[in-house]
C-alpha cells in the first residue's frame, strides 16, 4: 500500500497567510506608533498596551469559553484591532474605558458575527464609535503633544478639526490658530493617538502597497474624493482642502481602516466607488454634521454597503462584451 498524499491541484502555495498579512499591516503601523510614543509618551504607551492586551484577551476568552472554537489569536488580527483602536482614541483615555472599548470591538464588532472574516463592520471602529457615544467627554478632550511624562493629567487643547468647526460656525479667528500644513503632516497638533502624523501613516501605506498587502484603489479614491469635496465645501480654498485631508482620522482611515479586507468590497471598481463615497461622506459630516470628525461614521456606513457593492459591481470578465 502506498502512502502517497493525494489531493487536487494546485500542489504548491504562494506562502501567503493571514498572519503574514496582519503582520504586514502591523509593520506598516510601526512608524506612526513610534511617532505617537514620541509625542504622547507615557499616555500612548499605556493606551496602546491596554488596548492590544485586552483585545487579544477578549478574543481568547470568547473563543475558548463562549464560542468553544479553535483559539486563533495567533493570526494577529486581534493585535491589529487593538492597535487600531488605540490609534483612534485620545492618549489620555483612562484604562477602564479602553477595556470597555476593546470588549465592544472584539465582542460585539467581531465575535457576534462569527469571528474573523465574518464581521460586517470594522471592529476597531465599532469600539471607537461606541466609546464616542458612551463617553463623549473623555473621547473629545485632546492632549497636546510633547508632554511625554503625563497620562490622564495631560494638558488638552483644540484639534484642527475643532478649529474648522469653529470657523464654519462663524469664528473667523479660528483659522489663525490652525497648525500649518507642514506641522499637520508631521503630527505637531492635538488628535487621536495614532492619527496625527500623516507622514508616518503615508510611509506605512507605501510599505503596504509595495508588499501588495493593499491596493491603491481605496486610499487614493478616499483622499481624492475628500480633497475635492473639501475644496467645494470650504470656499474653494486649496490650502484648507489640503488641511482637511491631513487633519483628524482621514489619513489613518483611508490607509488602514477602510482598507480592512473583511469589510471592503472585493473588486477594484467596487473599491473605487466605496472609497469615493467614504471621502465625500466624511467631509460632508465634518462640514454639516454636529461632530467635528466624520471619518469613522463614513467608513462604518460604507462597510454596511460593501455586500451591496459586491452584488452589483462584478469583476471585468474575460471574454464577455456587453
Amino acid at each position: 500500500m502506498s502512502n502517497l498524499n493525494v489531493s487536487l491541484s494546485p500542489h504548491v502555495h504562494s506562502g501567503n497567510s493571514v498572519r503574514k498579512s496582519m503582520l504586514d499591516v502591523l509593520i506598516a503601523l510601526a512608524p506612526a506608533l513610534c511617532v505617537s510614543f514620541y509625542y504622547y509618551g507615557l499616555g500612548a504607551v499605556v493606551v496602546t498596551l491596554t488596548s492590544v492586551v485586552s483585545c487579544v484577551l477578549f478574543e481568547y476568552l470568547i473563543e475558548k469559553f463562549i464560542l468553544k472554537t479553535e483559539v486563533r489569536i495567533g493570526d494577529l488580527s486581534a493585535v491589529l484591532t487593538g492597535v487600531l483602536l488605540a490609534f483612534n482614541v485620545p492618549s489620555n483615555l483612562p484604562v477602564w474605558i479602553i477595556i470597555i472599548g476593546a470588549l465592544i470591538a472584539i465582542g460585539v464588532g467581531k465575535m457576534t458575527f462569527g469571528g474573523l472574516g465574518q464581521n460586517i463592520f470594522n471592529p476597531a471602529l465599532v469600539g471607537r464609535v461606541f466609546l464616542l457615544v458612551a463617553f463623549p467627554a473623555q473621547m473629545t478632550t485632546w492632549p497636546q503633544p510633547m508632554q511625554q511624562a503625563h497620562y490622564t493629567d495631560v494638558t488638552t487643547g483644540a484639534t484642527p478639526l475643532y478649529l474648522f468647526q469653529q470657523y464654519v460656525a462663524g469664528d473667523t479667528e479660528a483659522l489663525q490658530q490652525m497648525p500649518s500644513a507642514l506641522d499637520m503632516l508631521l503630527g505637531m497638533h492635538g488628535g487621536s493617538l495614532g492619527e496625527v502624523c500623516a507622514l508616518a501613516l503615508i510611509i506605512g501605506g507605501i510599505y503596504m502597497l509595495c508588499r501588495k498587502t493593499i491596493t491603491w484603489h481605496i486610499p487614493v479614491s478616499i483622499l481624492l474624493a475628500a480633497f475635492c469635496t473639501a475644496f467645494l465645501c470650504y470656499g474653494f480654498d486649496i490650502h484648507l482642502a489640503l488641511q482637511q485631508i491631513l487633519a483628524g482620522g482621514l489619513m489613518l482611515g483611508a490607509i488602514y481602516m477602510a482598507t480592512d479586507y473583511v469589510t471592503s468590497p472585493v473588486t477594484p471598481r467596487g473599491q473605487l466607488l466605496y472609497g469615493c463615497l467614504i471621502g465625500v461622506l466624511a467631509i460632508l459630516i465634518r462640514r454639516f454634521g454636529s461632530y467635528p470628525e466624520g471619518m469613522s461614521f463614513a467608513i462604518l456606513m460604507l462597510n454596511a454597503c460593501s455586500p451591496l457593492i459586491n452584488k452589483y459591481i462584478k469583476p471585468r470578465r474575460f471574454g464577455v462584451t456587453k
Partner: protein
Amino acid sequence: MKTFRMGGVHPAANKLSAGVAIRPIDIPALVAIPMAQNLGAPSKPVVVKGDKVKVGTVIAEPGGFLSSYIHSSVSGTVDKIDMVPDATGKKVPAVFIKVEGDEWEDTIDRSEDLVRELKITDPKAITDRIFHSGIVGMGGATFPTQVKLAPPPGMKCEVVIINAVECEPYLTSDHSLMLEHAEEILVGVTALMCAMQVRKAIIGIEANKPDAIALMTQKAAAYKGITIQPLKLKYPQGGEKQLIDACIGKQVPSGGLPIATGALVQNVGTAFAVYQAVQKNKPLIDRIVTVTGKSLAHPSNFLARIGIPIANLIEAAGGLPEDTGKVISGGPMMGKAMPEVNSYMVKGCSGILIMPNAEARRKQAEPCLRCAKCVDVCPMGLSPLFISKYSQKQMWAEAEEERIYDCIECGSCSFTCPSHRPLLDWIRQGKGKVMGIMRARAAEAKAKAEAEKAKAEAK
C-alpha cells in the same frame, strides 16, 4: 514584453532540469499502452493476444469523433489486453506488449536528417496524416489534433499560435525540445500553417527561457511567416485563452471556441510530433517528459516511449526518494497527484514531479478574509471566493450567475489564498454540477422546441 491582461500569479519556477540534455529511456521487457490517451472517447484496440507488432503498427482505432489512433511503441507480441490504472488511479484498458527487439514499420523514416521541404503540401492530406499518426495535444489536454484542425463552418483561422510558454513550474520538456529540435519544430509549424492555409504563425515563449528564445528567433529567420514572441513571465500564460490574449490581444468569447478569435493554438510538442508525422511518417510513439523534484537525485528530460512504466522513469532519474509525499503527473499547478506509482507513460504526460513529505500536505484552511486576492489573480475575471462558497452551499443558480463555467481550473486562486482555502476544489465540483444543469436545460429547451414544431406541422 507582452503578456495576458487579466490576473495571474508568479509561482517559484524551480526549473531544476533546465538545460539537461534529453536522454532516451531504455525499453523494458513489457509495456502497457493505455487505450484512453486523448480527451474524448477511448480508442478501440484492433489487435488481439498473440499478434505480432512493430514500432508504429496501429494497435487501436478512434473510438468516436473525439478520439485518436494509437500505435505500438515497441516491437514484439501482444501479451494481453487488461486493465491498468491511469495517473489518477482510475482503471483503463491497455494493450500489453512483450518486447522483442526494436523493429520499426518500413514506412517510417528513422534517419536523423532534417527534412525542411514539406513532403505533403495538400492541407487535407496533412490533417489526414496527423489523424492517422495519432497526434493529440501534447501540452496535457490531449485534444485530438485533427479535430482542432477542422474549424466549424463559418470560422476562419488567421494565425497559428504555438504554445511554447511552459508556465508550469518545474517542467522543462518543451524547453529542452526547443533547444534540441528547433528546426524540426519550425518545419512542423510550417506544416500546421499549410494545413490551416494561413501565412502567419507566432511562437509564444516565456522570458525565463532566453536561450530558447534566442535559438528559435535565429532559426525562424529562414521560415517565412513565423515570428517568436517573448512573453513576460506569468502563470497561467500557457492557458489557451491567456496565450491568445497575450499574443494577439483578443479574448476568446465566453462559451465560444478559441478559433473565434482567428487563432489556432497548438503546443510546441504537438508541432514537433507533426514534423515527425508529416516529414518522417512517424506516428506518435514517444515524447519528451521531465522527471523532476527537489528531492530527486537527477532531475532529467527523457525521451520515453508510450507505455513504459512511470516507475522506470523515476528509477532513471535516481529513484524514488524515501521521504516522497506526493508524485504528480504534470506540473504542480494543474497536475494530478498519483495515488500510486503504477501507471504507464501516455501521450499527454509532460512531466512527473516528486514532492517530499514536507511539501506534500496542504495547510489547514482558515476563514475567508474577503481579501480579494483571488479576485485579483483570477485570469478569467471571476470571484473565486464567492463561487467556491456557492458550490459549497450548493447554490447552483448563484454559481451560474457568477459564471462558474468560465473557470479554467488554473488554480491561481487556491495558490494565492492567504487562508489556504481549497477554493478550486469547490469550484471544480460546482462547475461540473452547473454545466450539467445547463446542458440538461438546453436539451430540454431543444426537445420542447422540436415538440412544438412537430405539433405545428401536424396541424
